[in-house]
């Protein structure tokens, strides 16, 4: 009986202790090293300044369906959501994300440049508050590529020179672009071709040539694990994951910058928040996307800040002390052969191409 009483008392106390923490907000992000960089660069200083407790929900991977369900049920538990540019456009179109007046709601650059000019083209949607530029790229095991390490993205399709398994994203995004690029299609023609059924079939036919050699990944952590295990000779993932694998974990892995596909990641604020929650969300976002904060984030992870004014402030890694600028996907030395993901294209065609890709995968 005593035991039961103690359990009850402890539980009740903890509950009330939880209630005593007045202000809380739930921020949705991706987890892993990325969430850590946000914790260090944004959350910790924000909590120190305002006393608002920030709760991390690492559900960004399912943000779109979850926000739809939350709206349907009238039970919105998220305050700020970290999404890629494509889903942000989708959420904006569906009215699930709030429209932002960038100049009015976000901070100016230190020299007084308006936010819309500082972010420039990265503001791809009225609801999207840009945060970082990252890229899909490829890492390979140094000890499994022989004496001729790959220099081109098309090494993915070259199973003769680089035999062994490769890990690719279990989805159309990035794979379709690379397939056409390595099938000799000019960069400018890739997205127009992918709009047509013939172009999609051509990309899948190219992927067919390596289908037996592919391990499909669905989470950003998969490729680093497979590379560390030596299960694959090369694999695609986000450049920040490869940075962590190579520089922080010291694995015998190198990465390619060739053919990297830029994508953007940023915040959206869901529609339907109560006025005080919305005010808090806006207050947080204004703080987290100012010039200094965006530059601070690049001290924890190798993703490029989206503000032109932040790029000048990119410094050394906070723990490793190495210069971060050469590890940014946007560094001039890294961006000789790249392309920017066409978000508008993917926002329109993603559902169609994705289902076609999944059908091909199941064959």
């Amino acid at each position, binding site marked *: 009986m005593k035991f039961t009483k103690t*359990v009850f008392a402890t539980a009740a106390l903890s509950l009330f202790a*939880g209630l005593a923490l007045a202000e809380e907000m739930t921020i949705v992000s991706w987890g*892993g090293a990325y969430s850590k960089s946000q914790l260090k660069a944004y959350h910790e200083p924000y909590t120190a300044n305002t006393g608002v407790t920030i709760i991390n929900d690492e*559900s960004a991977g399912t943000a779109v369906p979850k926000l739809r369900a939350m709206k*349907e049920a009238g039970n919105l538990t*998220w305050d700020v959501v970290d999404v890629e540019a494509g889903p942000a456009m989708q959420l904006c179109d569906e009215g699930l994300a709030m429209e932002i007046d960038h100049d009015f709601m976000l901070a100016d650059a230190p020299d007084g440049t308006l936010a819309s000019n500082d972010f420039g083209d990265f503001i791809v949607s009225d609801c999207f508050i840009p945060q970082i530029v990252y890229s899909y790229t490829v890492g390979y095991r140094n000890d499994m590529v022989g004496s001729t390490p790959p220099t081109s993205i098309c090494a993915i399709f070259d199973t003769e020179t680089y035999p062994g398994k490769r890990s690719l994203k279990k989805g159309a995004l990035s794979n379709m672009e690379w397939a056409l690029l390595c099938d000799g299609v000019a960069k400018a023609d890739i997205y127009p071709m992918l709009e047509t059924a013939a172009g999609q079939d051509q990309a899948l036919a190219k992927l067919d040539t390596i289908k037996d050699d592919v391990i499909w990944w669905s989470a950003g952590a998969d490729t680093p694990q497979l590379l*560390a295990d030596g299960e694959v000779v090369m694999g695609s993932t986000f450049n920040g994951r490869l940075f962590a694998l190579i520089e922080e974990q010291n694995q015998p892995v190198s990465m390619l910058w060739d053919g990297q596909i830029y994508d953007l990641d940023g915040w959206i604020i869901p529609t339907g928040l109560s006025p005080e929650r919305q005010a808090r969300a806006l207050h947080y976002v204004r703080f987290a996307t100012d010039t200094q904060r965006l530059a601070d984030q690049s001290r924890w992870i190798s993703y490029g800040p989206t503000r032109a004014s932040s790029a000048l402030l990119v410094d050394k890694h906070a723990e490793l002390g190495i210069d971060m600028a050469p590890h940014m996907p946007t560094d001039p030395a890294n961006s000789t052969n790249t392309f920017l993901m066409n978000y508008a294209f993917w926002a329109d065609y993603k559902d169609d191409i994705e289902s076609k890709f999944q059908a091909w995968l199941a064959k």
Partner: protein
Amino acid sequence: MGFEPKRLWLLSFAIVSVFLAYLMTSNEYFSSKNIRRTLPVLFAIFGIVFLGPVSAFFGGLFGWFFGWFFYWIYEGGYRAKLHPYLTSGQVLWYYSFRVICGMVFVFLIAPILVVMPLSFNAQDFFTFTPEMLRLDPAGYSLKHYQDFFNNSDWQRSFWNSLIIAPIATIISVSLGTLAAIGLSQSHVPAKRAIMAILISPMIVPLIISAMGMFFFYSTLGNFMENTLGLDKNLVGYVKVILAHAVLGIPFVIITVTATLVGFDKSLTRAAANMGAGPLKTFFKVQMPLIMPGVISGGLFAFITSFDEVVVVMFIGSASQKTLPWQMFIGLREQISPTILAVATILVGISVLLLMTLELLRRRSERLRGLSPG
């Protein structure tokens, strides 16, 4: 290419076996127990020479095993403890049966055991590094355990699980026990139908229950927040606890119903005859006798809540993030060995919990004179 070393191993193993058999049958010295002393040393030296110091340990282990095994076969020790009239086939089966049982055991336990050394990995991957295989201390570290105890996300989810699971268990045990007792009465109409409804959460696919619960509890939560004016966090906990209690109830009903089958109804009548009211009869007579069923049902309910990831992800918000939720996310986004450290800790807790319960059960049986103890 990968085939060669295996062949080589088999070949050398065969040569060693034949050589040993020859030694034992031809040489007086080796046919005695001496072989059991010599072999480990030989194998250990072999290990040092060919593979390095760590192999000496494994070499010694192998040597000890083979020495024992060959001696056992040679001396006919395998018949020593069996009835003398068994045929060779029966003896063979006697040992094959034990080997098969052992293999089943390994099959069940190995995945859990593999996790434990990996949780001491010095690297951030689920990989046995060369340092670990060499038993080099540099390959091991406690950093994943430190991460678990220092990381606020892990701590929050751990405490959430410790708040949610016990309360959900208490609710499901009380409701489930009452339901089972009610359903065991002969005068209750439509017993089977009621039973089927009550245990449906166990049968309906979890994801479907979760989807239904999401909409049901969203409405309930909105009502509690907006109309009753309760705190958002408190409502979140209430929702998850109620949902987990619902999932736990079927287990309690089933185990308690099973114990009630063996319960002698005349005892309650005897108690009533002696002037005890229904409540007193229940707590003094019926409850102690069906206690084992209640406890094991409660244990199942607790584990259900403690292990549950689908429903809580639908119903809970991030403030109610439980341990399985955090583990699921960690696995999907990070593949960090912190999960393995947590798993090891949880295995430890489960073993302790089960051992305590078993000891308590034995103690109560002994006290009630049900077993010689």
